[in-house]
């Protein structure tokens, strides 16, 4: 494997969990809900995915279990914020804390056990092409799923009726309600979608990235995903660019260190954040665009008047 291939492969591995978690949150926020519980849903996905894969020996069953664990955790958030009308910010934080604690409890029997790694895709001939074979045709399946999800979300939000309804609910839930859309139901569905992709992101950590269960293994990636959604001004294409920018700058920082370029490591570690903030500043100079895309009802609860 040439060094450039190794760099790109590592960048893709570092970026994919961010993209997976963020693309779901993008849909959730587009529907007007702010779910700060990504980290908790991710870590629940990671532990349930690992546990299921370890018990059954099948990485795919692990992926499915992780997805459902993410959905279950997100529905708890939905129940609290959409039905019981709790504060979304506080509830999201609570979900993160709950997820971190509960996953530790569930995973206590799985610490230090050998994991099952989700096998890379292998297409005869194509995967062995020099230079591009491994990169384009030999990734793990979740990489392709993350890209397919991004394209799918972009298409649905922009060109379909479903996307229009989600956006309407997020922009002005009173108008959407007046038009006859079931605001709370739409939001529940979006929250569950966000939970599913966060669960997938967790599965990526415990089945691909580092195939083992370690408490707290998400290590703050949920928060980075959350920031990326804002950075992207709620647009899927920018979100993907942001996730790969973040992963890319991070891995290149490690490379630079390994080559001994003499830049302080603290600065290199901060670079992904600096790069992301810079990009955010540059994008937000176009006020019109960012205002148009910001869901106007973001974070506000909706009580249908009867």
């Amino acid at each position: 494997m040439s060094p450039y291939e190794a760099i790109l492969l590592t960048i893709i591995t570092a970026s994919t969990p961010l993209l997976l978690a963020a693309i779901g949150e993008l849909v959730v926020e587009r529907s007007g809900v702010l779910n700060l519980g990504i980290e908790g849903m991710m870590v629940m996905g990671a532990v349930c995915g690992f546990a299921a894969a370890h018990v059954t020996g099948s990485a795919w069953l692990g992926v499915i279990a992780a997805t459902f664990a993410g959905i279950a955790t997100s529905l708890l958030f939905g129940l609290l914020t959409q039905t019981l009308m709790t504060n979304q910010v506080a509830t999201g934080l609570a979900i993160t804390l709950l997820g971190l604690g509960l996953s530790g409890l569930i995973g206590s029997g799985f610490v230090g056990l050998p994991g099952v790694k989700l096998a890379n895709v292998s297409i005869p001939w194509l995967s062995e092409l020099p230079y591009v074979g491994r990169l384009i045709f030999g990734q793990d399946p979740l990489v392709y799923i993350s890209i397919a999800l991004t394209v799918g979300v972009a298409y649905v939000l922009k060109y379909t009726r479903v996307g229009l309804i989600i956006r309407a609910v997020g922009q002005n839930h009173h108008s959407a309600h007046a038009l006859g859309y079931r605001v709370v139901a739409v939001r529940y569905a979006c929250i569950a979608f966000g939970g599913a992709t966060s669960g997938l992101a967790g599965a990526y950590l415990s089945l691909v990235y580092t195939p083992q269960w370690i408490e707290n293994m998400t290590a703050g990636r949920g928060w980075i995903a959350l920031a990326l959604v804002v950075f992207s001004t709620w647009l899927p294409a920018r979100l993907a660019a942001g996730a790969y920018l973040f992963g890319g700058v991070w891995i290149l920082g490690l490379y630079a260190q390994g080559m001994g370029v003499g830049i302080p490591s603290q600065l290199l570690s901060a670079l992904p954040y600096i790069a992301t903030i810079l990009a955010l500043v540059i994008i937000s100079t176009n006020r019109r665009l960012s205002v148009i895309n910001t869901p106007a009802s973001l974070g506000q609860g909706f009580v249908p008047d009867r």
Partner: protein
Amino acid sequence: MKKLLTAAVSIALVSALSISAVAAEKLKVGFIYIGPPGDHGWTYQHDQGRQAIDAALGDQVETVFVENVPEGPDAERTITRLARQGAGLIFTTSFGYMDPTLKVAAKFPDVKFEHATGYLRADNVSTYSSRFYEGRYVIGQIAAQMSKSGVAGYIGSFPIPEVVRGINAFLLGAQTVNPDFKLKVVWVNSWFDPGREADAAKVLISQGADIITQHTDSTAAVQVAEEQGVNAFGQASDMAAFAPNALLTSIIDNWSDYYIARTQAVLDGTWVSTDTFGGMDANMVNMGPFINMPADVKALAEKTTAAITAGELHPFAGPVYKQDGSLAAAEGETVDLGTLLGMNWYVQGVDDQL
């Protein structure tokens, strides 16, 4: 509903009171952990020490721990809470707890504090650390013999003296076998982030390192080494289960003896503020089994370990040259303890700058 709540609260209060009434006779020993005890690394070993206290002094002592406490303001709050809850002895087990520990200690003069790897003390604050670098010297020697490329990769957490000392000791050990041995260093600026540790390992391997060693707390790097067919060393805890073919040995922190002794001192009323810097001789640093290596490499490793334990060999015995070529310790001298504790320079041969 309100009545029910009141009832629940009062039951909780009563049970809390009754627990503390029972506990009042026992000495409460608190632990603050930077990661989860399930990390199979740094925190795992501290938790083993806590369990050793339970096993040895369980009839007179009750231990409690708080895991995943971030360094900074959160730590201060958590330590204060433990002190308020009646802990008589509190172990704070990460470097970054230094300031919070001292601040809380000033407010609770009757509580004894033990801060791991720090350098500031008070009347009721002791510090303790291990000479991990002794183990680093041994694994450096093994690395230089096992490496084909002559390049090792070192994953650092934060560029603090404790970590820099380990890097230097590793390279000094390696240079006794191969004077041209190269060491690449990558800092991940985190004690515990399995994903980043794995990234760093992949990066180092792709840059030609065929030995991976790390001063971070998870087993991720060791697993990457196993996957990619290079050798690795366990840190803090025996990590052989995670890389049965790649692992050569582990540096194992053994806190049990120290923790039991200090707890006993509080029970006896003989506790005084001290600074402990124990190594192989004090049974605070152990080497794991030497595996996956030829007999001659193993023999030298055992010989070196024995020599360090007996005090015949000091990893920082001169001549030691700094990276810029200046002399840190001449032939026949040893780098002094103060310099070791505040080490902020590399020895010659490290392919990195601080």
